[in-house]
């Protein structure tokens, strides 16, 4: 399947955690533990610490999130403008796929 080019498509197994983390950060800047709790609450997915920081490092290296000054050794992260537009595009594509899938399921 040909995919439209996006910076998330090169993340391999970290692609789905990246979408979850970006979605969590849209609401407000959060540190690692708060991201894990929010993702658990919203998506029911537990992000392990290794996966979380491997994904954060990738997102940060691509300029999609940025670290804020640490508070008590906990550093909050904030989504950037590039991260917002990338997430918007990704979620719109997912929405289109979900809509089409549900419509076809209804015909079964």
């Amino acid at each position: 399947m040909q995919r439209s080019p996006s910076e998330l498509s090169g993340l391999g197994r970290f692609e789905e955690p990246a979408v979850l983390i970006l979605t969590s950060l849209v609401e407000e800047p959060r540190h690692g533990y708060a991201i894990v709790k929010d993702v658990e609450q919203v998506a029911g997915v537990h992000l392990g610490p290794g996966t979380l920081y491997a994904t954060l490092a990738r997102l940060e290296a691509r300029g999609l999130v940025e670290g804020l000054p640490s508070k008590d050794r906990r550093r909050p992260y904030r989504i950037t403008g590039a991260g917002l537009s990338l997430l918007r595009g990704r979620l719109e594509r997912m929405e289109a796929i979900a809509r089409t899938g549900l419509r076809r399921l209804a015909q079964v």
Partner: protein
Amino acid sequence: MRFLLRLYPREWRCRYGAEMDAMLRQGGRLGPRDAIDLLRGALDARLHPQSRHRLHRRSRLVRRQRRFDVRSLFGIAALVAVRLAADRLPAPAAGPGAFAASVAEIALWGAIVALVLRRTRFPWPLTLATGCALELLLGGGRLSLGSLLPSFLEPFRTIAWAAALLVLAQARRPGRWPGTEPPAGAPVSARPRPDPPQPLEARGRRAS
């Protein structure tokens, strides 16, 4: 479980270690799944190091690295030539000054090795000690073990000395994780920053 953070590379720990440690403390007791996840994360951090610096300047780094390798190879070749020439010099005559001369020779080669390795991650006292140790093991002086070898093995001794130097010279100083830590006390906005404006030239191309 936090000891698993030690498996991450040093650069990674400098950047993320404190906050990962704080997160693990806050999360309480971790299960085996989290331990495996940390192990996979550590492996990934070693195999695929991430930083803005590495992503955007990889080609420049590779070029610089190649230049460094070529430079270090030339340097080692020059050192081998000096070494071979120095070994041809007549040894000081036996006497009270001979021992001091041998010690001075070891220290001199130690200092030369320290100069060769000054851009590596090793601190200079360690490089000096390494140079002296290499000289004691592989040197041709009166106090060196290398002097016990038969004369036809001398070139191999010098080559082994140079190879050890070459290996040590590859241990580059770790780079800092750049551009990710805002200055202390910097004003923080809860809203995401907008994208930086694109150059006018790029806009024109896109419009046409």
